[in-house]
């Protein structure tokens, strides 16, 4: 459903992506692992049209995304929970979730989706009128994920959803991510927590300084010697 071909993107003189090609099938969960500064965030931001691409193409369900503005890409069904959560700090939890459904025209459907998100993350339901910025880090991450889900994405880009969270919350978040493929949502999961990500994912890619250096099923990658040494802290 998503095909990235030979993508180059960067910032001024910095070339952060240098010919990246990846593919995600319907309902598939794909992990992208790589060291700090490898270009993972840039890749997701380029897919979403935030960082302009210089070369190559991004195609989503047969439609080219390259050159489309970010909001139009979101409207096509590409959800994105960005690095650092980036919830709206001075909007209430409810308003944050409502904005998640911004592209939806049916208000009642958005209200239902918000209820559903609160069933997944009950703590959000208890904090509906609280400002987003007053939530704890873990609660903010749940809100970021819930906000993206309310948009009913067909493809969800997740940028380090477990960063800085307590193990129990990480487990909860990974559980939810694992359940997305059953709902028919394809996921691109960028993670520092490579072990958990590869366990969850159908397939994975290793990104190193702007290039894909390895790819394979989650099992293959977690068994690969280079991956074990560099990303799983073994060897």
């Amino acid at each position, binding site marked *: 459903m998503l095909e990235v071909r030979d993508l180059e993107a960067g910032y001024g003189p910095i070339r952060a992506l240098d010919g990246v090609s990846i593919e995600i099938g319907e309902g598939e969960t794909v992990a992208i692992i790589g060291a700090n500064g490898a270009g993972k965030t840039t890749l997701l931001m380029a897919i*979403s049209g935030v960082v302009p691409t210089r070369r190559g193409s991004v195609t989503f369900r047969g439609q080219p995304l390259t050159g489309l503005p970010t909001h139009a890409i979101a409207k096509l069904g590409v959800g994105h929970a960005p690095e650092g959560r980036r919830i*709206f700090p001075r909007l209430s939890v409810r308003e944050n979730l409502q904005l998640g459904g911004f592209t939806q025209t049916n208000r009642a459907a958005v209200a239902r989706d918000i209820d559903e998100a609160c069933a997944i993350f009950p703590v959000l339901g208890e904090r509906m009128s609280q400002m987003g910025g007053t939530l704890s880090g873990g609660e903010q991450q749940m809100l970021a994920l819930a906000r993206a889900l309310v948009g009913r994405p067909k493809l969800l880009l997740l940028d380090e959803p477990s960063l800085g969270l307590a193990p129990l919350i990480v487990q909860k978040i990974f559980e939810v991510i694992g359940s997305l493929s059953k709902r028919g949502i394809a996921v691109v999961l960028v993670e520092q927590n490579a072990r958990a990500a590869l366990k969850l994912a159908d397939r994975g890619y290793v990104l190193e300084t702007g290039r894909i250096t390895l790819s394979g099923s989650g099992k293959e990658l977690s068994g690969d010697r280079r991956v074990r040494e560099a990303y799983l802290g073994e060897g």
Partner: protein
Amino acid sequence: MSAQFFLQQCLIGLTNGALIALVALGYTMVYGIIGLINFAHGDLIMLGACLALSIVGALGLAAVDPAVTWVAIAGLVLVCGLACGSLNVAVDRIVYKPLRNAPKLAPLVSAIGVSFIFMNIGLFWLGSADRSFPELLPSDNVLPDDWGLQFTQKDRLVVLIVVPLMVALSILVRWTKLGKAMRAVSQDPTAAALVGVDVDRVIAATFFIGGFLGGAASVVYSLYINTIGFQMGFQNGLYAFTAAVLGGIGSIPGAVLGGVVIGLVRALASAYVGERWTGAIVFAILIVILVFRPEGLLGRRVREKV
């Protein structure tokens, strides 16, 4: 001096403050959404006044039956509001939008440039001398005589136009989809785009609303003060901008509060101290408040961790 005199000055101050607040909203909304101090806002209002004067002249509104005066005024507010709103959007499109990712000083200097261009258009339109604006409303008191207070039809006009506009604005910002999108864009434009908000359209809508309020203010001002001139934008803009900063720039209730405070201070200072001291007193108070509350009366103290 009597309590009645004091009350009278407060009434004058509140009315003037409401008008200042209406202009201050235009500054604070644009600042809130793109962080730009729109120096041309005062001059936009001057152009609104030019348009109002031309319309009143062309349609002979000064001579209409008193029964339809209010219809004429509502029409003027609407037309000047739409015109100023559209002009504001056009300026954003042509001048500020290409500079969206440029360093902050570039759009600021451009705004000063736009201010001068507007002033020159006004000079061409009105001539260099002040022009008197026809009295569409008489200055007779609407309060019972035994209250001993003056509140004229003109004062009432200010309240009748400004208060509903402010209520409408609060409802829009608080409850509508556009209002939520505006607040989201002002907090994190990238995150807003990622949930599907068309950021450029939201910014354009903000310029339109700020300009519309400015256009409405230009009509109220013209009917209230009855003198307009090509330089009126500067001083009025300065007080309104000050009100926005005093209230906490970016904060909508702050702009209203700041406008009312400045209106009151001006009225009381000119009544009890003397007209020529008002400017100094207003800005002295501004400085004192900002020393203790740099973020303004209702501004945010710190950035939240995001």
